[in-house]
C-alpha cells in the first residue's frame, strides 16, 4: 500500500511541477544556476571515473579475450560498445544520482523543515514547480553533455591503458574504436540518459519536498532519494534496453 501511496503522490507532484511557471524569466535564471550547481560541479568526478573506467574495461577485455581466433581490434571495439552503450549512460547516471540526487533532496528538504517552502506557498508561488522544475530541466540539459564527455574520456582512458600497458597495439585499438560505428548507439545512450536525468531530479525532488521533521529526516530523505533513484535507473535501464535494442 505504501508503494501505491508514494507512486500516486509522486505523479501528483510531477503534475504540479510541470504546470505553467508564474514567470519565465525567474525560472530561466534558476535553470542557469542549477546547471552550474548540478552539472558543471560534477564534471570533475565524471572525468575521473570515465578515464579509469575506460582503462579498466580495456585491460579486462584484453585479458578475457586472449584467443587466436579473435582479432586484436575486437578489444577496442568491445571497449567502445561497452562505454557508449552502458558504462557512460548508466554508471555515470548512477554516480550523478548519488551526487546530484542527494544535493537536490537535502536542499529542498532543508527548505521544507525551515518553513521556506511554506513561505513560498503563502506568497502564492507554485513551490513545487519553482524548486523542482529548474532542476529537472538543468539535469535534462547537462546530463547528456556529461555523458558525451564521459564517452570521449572513457575511450581515451582505454587508449591510455593500451599505450601504457601494451595489452593491445594502439593501431589495432584505434581501428576497433572506429570499426562499424553506428550513430544509433549515441542516440540510444542519449535517450537513456534523458530518462535517467528526469528520474534523478524528480525522485530526489519528491523526497526532498515531502520531508517531515528536522535535520535527521533531511538526511533520511537524502538517502532514500539516492537509493530510489538508483533502483529506478537500473529498472528503466532494463526496460529501455529491451525497447530500444529489441
Amino acid at each position, binding site marked *: 500500500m505504501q508503494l501505491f501511496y508514494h507512486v500516486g503522490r509522486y505523479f501528483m507532484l510531477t503534475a504540479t511541477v510541470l504546470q505553467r511557471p*508564474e514567470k519565465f524569466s525567474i525560472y530561466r535564471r534558476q535553470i542557469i544556476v542549477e546547471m552550474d550547481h548540478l552539472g558543471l560541479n560534477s564534471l570533475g568526478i565524471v572525468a575521473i571515473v570515465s578515464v579509469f573506467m575506460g582503462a579498466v574495461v580495456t585491460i579486462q577485455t584484453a585479458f578475457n579475450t586472449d584467443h587466436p581466433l579473435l582479432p586484436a581490434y575486437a578489444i577496442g571495439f568491445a571497449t567502445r560498445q561497452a562505454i557508449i552503450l552502458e558504462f557512460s549512460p548508466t554508471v555515470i547516471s548512477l554516480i550523478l544520482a548519488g551526487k546530484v540526487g542527494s544535493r537536490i533532496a537535502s536542499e529542498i528538504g532543508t527548505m521544507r523543515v525551515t*518553513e521556506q517552502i*511554506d513561505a513560498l506557498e*503563502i506568497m*502564492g508561488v507554485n513551490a513545487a514547480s519553482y524548486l523542482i522544475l529548474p532542476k529537472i530541466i538543468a539535469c535534462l540539459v547537462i546530463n547528456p553533455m556529461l555523458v558525451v564527455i564521459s564517452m570521449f574520456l572513457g575511450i581515451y582512458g582505454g587508449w591510455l591503458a593500451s599505450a601504457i600497458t601494451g595489452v593491445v597495439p594502439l593501431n589495432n585499438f584505434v581501428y576497433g574504436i572506429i570499426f562499424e560505428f553506428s550513430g544509433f548507439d549515441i542516440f540510444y545512450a542519449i535517450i537513456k540518459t534523458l530518462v535517467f536525468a528526469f528520474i534523478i531530479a524528480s525522485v530526489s525532488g519528491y523526497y526532498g519536498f515531502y520531508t517531515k521533521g528536522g535535520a535527521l529526516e533531511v538526511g533520511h530523505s537524502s538517502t532514500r532519494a539516492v537509493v530510489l533513484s538508483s533502483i529506478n535507473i537500473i529498472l528503466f535501464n532494463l526496460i529501455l534496453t529491451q525497447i530500444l535494442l529489441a
Partner: protein
Amino acid sequence: MIRIANINKNFGERQVLEDISLRFEQGKTNLIIGKSGSGKTVLMKCLVGLLEADSGHIFYDSRDFLRMNTRARKTLRKEMGMLFQGGALFDSMTVTENVVFPLNMFTNKSKGEKIRRAGFCLDRVNLHNVGHLYPSELSGGMKKRVAIARAIAIGPKYLFCDEPNSGLDPPTAILIDKLISEITRELDITTVVNTHDLNSVMEIGDHVAFIHQGKLWWTGSNREILHTSNKELNSFVYATELMRCLRQ
C-alpha cells in the same frame, strides 16, 4: 476583514479545532492566544491554507477561501504576507534578494523600482545597510524584521504572524510587536498574530481570542483580559509569579 465560521479540524481521531467562529477586524492587531498544543498554530495554518480545515468557512472580506479553486487561492495569497516563527528567510539569498523576491515573482516593476521598494521596506523595519548580508549573518531580531519587510513588500491586505517574538529578548520582542502594530495601522491591513506572550497581548492586543483545547473560550480586548472571570483564561494569564504579584 477576515471572518471564520464553524471551523473544525481533525488529525485522525483527534479533534484539534472544534467549531471555531471568529472575526478579525481590518486596521487592528488581532491576537490568537493559548497554551502550547491548544490549536492556535493549526488555526493559523488553516487560515492561510497550509492545512485544510475539515468543515466551516473562512471569508476574506466576502470571498470564501475554503470554497475557492486553486487558481483563485493563488490570487488571494498574493494579498497575504506571513511572518514565520523562524523567519523562513531564503538562506541562499541576501536580505535585499529576499525582500525583492515577491516583487520579482508578481510585479513587472523595473529593477530600480524593486530595489527602491526593498530599501523602503527595510528602512520601515529600521534595518539599514544590511541588504548585502545573508540570513545566517543576522541576529534573531533582524531576521524577524527582514521577514516583516518581505511580508509587506508587495503590499498585503492580510498579515499573519506566527509567534513573532519567540526566542527574542524582551526589548527586541517589544520592538517587533510595536512594528507589527504600527504597520497594521499605517497600511490599514488585517493582522492576525499567534502568540502565548502576555507582553504582546498587553502591548498590541486590539482584539484577543483565547483558544483552549481546540475551542474558542474567550474573546475581548487586552484591557478586559485582566478582569475576566473565565477560569481557564485566568490560569493562563496568571500562570507566572510576576502576573500574580501584579494582580495583588
